[in-house]
């Protein structure tokens, strides 16, 4: 049988050790508190529906081309496909909006925003970007985009 009282005591001891060694770093806590400021209340959310990192089967990986990571986001009115290539800590991004249209895209990442324009075929490229959580916010200006569309955040 397991010694339940002993386990409870041991668990309490372990709890104190973990608290000493591995509590949330204050800088991260501060960044999390700041995350609310990135909230977009006027935008439709484009969910991450495909990520080659987790959605591609192993066989495809073995056949593997040397392409970067493919991400697809989908909102009601718009899809966004992105290919991300890495070099150390920097990321290059090439993307395509469907349906194709010329819009303004805010690439939100780290503490900053990089603003770019898509061409009339809905294509865009950006970089180098710092690795880390990133979201694209497509602003109106195109023919079909009634409301802004923001993608789910994903660490690239």
């Amino acid at each position, binding site marked *: 049988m397991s010694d339940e009282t002993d386990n409870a005591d*041991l668990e309490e001891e372990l709890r104190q050790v973990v608290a000493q060694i*591995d509590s949330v770093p204050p800088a991260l806590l501060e960044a999390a508190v700041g995350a609310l400021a990135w909230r977009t209340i006027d935008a439709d959310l484009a969910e991450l529906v495909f990520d080659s990192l987790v959605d591609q089967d192993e066989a495809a990986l073995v056949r593997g081309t040397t392409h970067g990571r493919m991400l697809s986001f989908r909102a009601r009115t718009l899809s966004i496909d992105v290919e991300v290539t890495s070099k150390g800590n920097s990321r290059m991004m090439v993307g395509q909006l469907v349906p194709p249209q010329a819009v303004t895209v805010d690439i939100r990442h780290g503490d900053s925003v990089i603003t770019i324009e898509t061409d009339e075929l809905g294509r865009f490229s950006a970089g180098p970007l710092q690795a880390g959580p990133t979201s694209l916010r497509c602003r109106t200006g195109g023919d079909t985009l009634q409301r802004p569309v923001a993608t789910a955040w994903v660490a690239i």
Partner: protein
Amino acid sequence: MESDEIGVLVRAAAGGDSAAWKAIVDHFSGLVWAITRGYRLGPPDAADVFQTTWLRLAEHLDRIASPERLGAWLATTARRESLRIARAAARTTPAHDGTLVGLGHVDDHSPEQAVLDAEQAMLDSERARQLWRAFRELSDRCQQLLRVLMASPPPSYAEVGAALGMPVGSIGPSRARCLDRLRQMLTGKVSARLLCTHRYEKQRLESIGV
């Protein structure tokens, strides 16, 4: 925190109330952090997962249908993102010997040992250092489970289940088993691998009536 209290905070934060948002972050950040650490992500990757999880929640505030599930929602998000990043890391770094990693093996000159040394230095008593050393010799799965259970404030079993992708019913027994093992390692001062061998041997002898 009661679920109706969480509900009030979620609605307030969705309306832009930063104090309410901070209260949510303060309450659940220990859990989210413990999950990223449980998946053994290094500091930069753990930081990415942690921040991504909170950014996701900020965008989802007005889509959280049942506030009592908020902790589980955060735990699920942190788990998925941890697995995603762990997979990315596995692709870009040379493969390790999975069997050694699986045993939680620590060799003398590994980066893992350096981390362990740094951790030990933060502890103020020999007993605490001993406990932590024994903890780090547990199987990955035990370390992961106990690490999440040790989050502050202590998470519910629903949250732990979501954090580790395991059925709620198996958390209690696994918890007891992992703590038993930890205690035996401390008292017997045997390594995890020797212990496994001993236990197996003991069970075998018992089973044949010795």
